[in-house]
């Protein structure tokens, strides 16, 4: 019998677990053991589960994953090329916090940025009220897997009323093949606090598995602007989740760019209390045999909350894109205002898109709408460009680029915008696209 990845991981767990952060703390050990028993019962999610219908992760089972061996010497210039200017930068290498690369000097009072592994050693109770509170392991087994296996992560806490002037960038890099990079982040913004967090995922050219779970707690009137730039290596598997609890009037904005990886999936769940607002923007690009899955769920728990969502997908060659966007309006959530939009461009005969917007509404005084389109470039637009003297290929490139660039343009930070734009340009043929226009 061939042994699968999950079986191998389950087998290794008893030797591994004593070294995991928090295992010597009673509540955390119980948390991990429970997650482990859930995972060991059924392994990674199967396409038979409705939420995983279009994303089959069985290929992962054919691989072996383990903690990275001793830190490999990596090119500092490559890591630093991922850094944005004027940010506090936290770096996780192969899923472990690296103090050498991180730049955290000058953090103002009332702001804490630290390694989760360290906190679980020095002051574990600081995490007790947060770990597993924004997302339950029952959601699916990637969460349970992460809860049982996470080796480190970043804890960020911004105290009440503090408005962070600089952004915090979290850079996840994976450097070795077959590495399992498993991190848990906890972000807490107290009442009225404001911050911006940018996540970057990158890897050196090898096959590895990233699973990263972010639990986010926004107290009343807190504001978090977040971005996720996923530029994983071509052979990488990636599961990343944002699970956001928004108290009254809290605001959450998220920009998601799924560019890299072989098979990737991102979950974004927002729980909205009274008059909270959330805005989710996303762009996924698929080339070759890439599989890009974006999964969002917005739950309007209380009245007067607003949600806006726009996701765009561009699929070329043999790529497959999946979008699932679910909006749930609870019985008490009167005067909910929710809009969702998903547009997809198929560029090749072999590309595929599966999209599933869902509205579940239990309140009556609501304004909810969603829209989905799938198509190719409009021939009239292509013709228009040609009639103005462009050759066909340039015209197509230009229109495709413009379609995708609409999501990039929503970024307010100049250097982040430029970085994402350059990634976008790298991935598409540039003939006909003049970056001086941008």
């Amino acid at each position, binding site marked *: 019998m061939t042994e699968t990845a999950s079986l191998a991981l389950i087998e290794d767990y008893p030797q591994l677990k004593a070294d995991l952060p928090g295992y010597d703390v009673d509540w955390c050990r119980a948390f991990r053991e429970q997650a482990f028993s859930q995972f060991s019962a059924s392994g990674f999610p199967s396409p038979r589960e409705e939420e995983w219908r279009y994303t089959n992760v069985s290929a992962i089972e054919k691989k072996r994953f383990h903690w990275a061996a001793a830190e490999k010497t990596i090119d500092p210039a490559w890591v630093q090329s991922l850094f944005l200017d004027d940010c506090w930068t936290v770096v996780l290498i192969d899923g472990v916090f690296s103090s050498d690369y991180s730049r955290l000097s000058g953090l103002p009072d009332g702001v804490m940025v630290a390694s989760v592994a360290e906190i679980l050693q020095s002051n574990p109770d600081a995490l007790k009220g947060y770990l597993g509170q924004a997302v339950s392991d029952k959601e699916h087994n990637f969460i349970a897997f992460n809860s049982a296996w996470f080796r480190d992560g970043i804890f960020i806490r911004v105290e009440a009323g503090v408005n962070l002037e600089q952004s915090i960038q979290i850079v996840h890099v994976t450097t070795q093949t077959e590495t399992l990079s498993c991190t848990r982040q906890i972000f807490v913004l107290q009442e009225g606090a404001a911050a911006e967090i940018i996540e970057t995922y990158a890897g050196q050219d090898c096959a590895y598995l990233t699973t990263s779970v972010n639990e986010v707690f926004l107290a009343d009137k807190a504001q978090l602007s977040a971005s996720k730039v996923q530029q994983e290596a071509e052979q990488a598997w990636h599961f990343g989740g944002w699970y956001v609890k928004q108290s009254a009037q809290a605001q959450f904005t998220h920009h998601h760019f799924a560019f890299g990886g072989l098979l990737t999936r991102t979950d974004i769940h927002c729980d909205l209390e009274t008059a909270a607002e959330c805005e989710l923007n996303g762009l996924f690009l698929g080339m070759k045999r890439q599989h890009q899955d974006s999964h969002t769920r917005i739950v309007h728990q209380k009245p007067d909350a607003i949600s806006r969502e726009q996701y765009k997908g561009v699929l070329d060659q043999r790529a497959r894109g999946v979008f699932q966007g679910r909006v749930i309006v609870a019985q008490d959530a009167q005067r909910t205002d929710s809009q969702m939009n998903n547009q997809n461009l198929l560029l090749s005969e072999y590309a595929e898109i*599966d999209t599933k917007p869902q*509205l579940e509404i239990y309140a009556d005084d609501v304004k909810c709408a*969603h829209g989905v*389109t*799938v198509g190719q470039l409009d021939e009239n637009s292509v013709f228009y460009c040609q009639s103005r003297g462009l050759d066909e290929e340039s015209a197509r490139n230009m229109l495709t680029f413009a379609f995708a660039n609409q999501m990039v343009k929503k970024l307010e930070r100049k250097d982040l915008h430029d970085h994402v734009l350059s990634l976008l340009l790298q991935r598409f043929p540039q003939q006909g696209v003049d970056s001086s226009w941008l």
Partner: protein
Amino acid sequence: MTSNAQEIEDLIGQQDYEAGFVTDIEVDTFPPGLDEDVIRRLSKVKNEPDFMLEYRLEAYRHWLTMTEPNWAQLNIEPIDYQAISYYSAPKKKEDGPKSLDEVDPELLETYKKLGIPLDEQERLAGIAVDAVFDSVSVATTFKGKLKEAGVIFCPISEALQDYPELVKQYLGTVVPAGDNFFAALNAAVFTDGSFVYIPKGVRCPMELSTYFRINAANTGQFERTLIIADEGSHVSYLEGCTAPMRDENQLHAAVVELVALDNAEIKYSTVQNWYPGDKDGKGGIYNFVTKRAECRGKNSKVSWTQVETGSAITWKYPSCVLLGENSVGEFYSVALTNNYQQADTGTKMIHIGANTRSTIISKGISAGKAQNTYRGLVKVAKSAKNARNYTQCDSLLVGDRCGAHTFPYVEVKQPTAKVEHEATTSKISEDQLFFCQQRGLSAEDAVSMIVNGFCKEVFKELPMEFAVEAQALLGISLEGSVG
């Protein structure tokens, strides 16, 4: 209705379900229970050819290996399949009625009360009716006139005897016996239903219609409809359903198969008004139906129109498999749920042929404590070049304890395909209501008018008589949902 009667009705607390009476008639009913012997007996009673018994038994054996699906957004009380009687028919006099004159007057009275006179002279418009009462077809009108045109319109049990080859050729080719749990059960135990064959190049001279009536208690109705439109033909088919008011849930698991060959067109309209249960959610029909059409030929077209106001639970997805080049699938639906009714309905449009087109217009109205779900799939295969789909799903909420849900699935493997989906959910605004009331309409009339306007896009697809009935039904079904 006089105000006196209204008051009495209020006292009893019964909902205005006019079709809720029971016909007292002598019946042949199988004892409850299901096994191979029951199926053999059923097949024998219906005097079926051998291949049918084989077909049924195979379906039954397959059914035994299946489990009930549970993915829908529905709360279903467990169904005891052994407590259902699988055959119930009015007692036949010798060989059964040869003409309308011989049909039991009690039955004719029943249909008259339902507004479906089976007397050919009385028909306003030329509509041929096949009346199915519990497990059997009791009368089919205008048979002779249809025969002149070459159209076969008869109960499927009769077709099995008169045209076994034709039935064998098509039965189960659109919905295979093992397609799903309820389709397998239906294949094993279906009792009657309509069979329609329109020959090449014929435009059916009148509307065809089947009227389904559940009367007996503790029975299930399992009917099977098969419509074949041969090359270049055209047919419009209507279906209506009612049942008495009872405290128990009754199962209705039908299968409808449509086949459209080259250049053929089938228009299939349903006004479903099974007993919805009382206002506390007690009783009512479980309407679990598999309806599927295959546009096999080039330029063929199938159009489904449904108005779903009845049933405790409606669970069905009339679908189109668009195989032929340039074939067209349409789905127009109004689903109204009130009190504790639940509906999980929608459609599947499977685009396989090139230049295939589909349109989906779905209007869901949810009132009281009801849950109304649109679930649909638009699938474009790699072969479906230039496929086109437009979907619009609107939901209207009446009251703050009901739910409206939309679950569209879109799967596209062909870059030249264009797929659009739009959905909105809203409630009747205070402004709209105020405007109508200010002009002298009662709140209920105002709601009824607004709802009818909301559904207009679908109603205009219905044949005229049905459109009128559908509008009236909406008004009745919404009763008690305002104020």
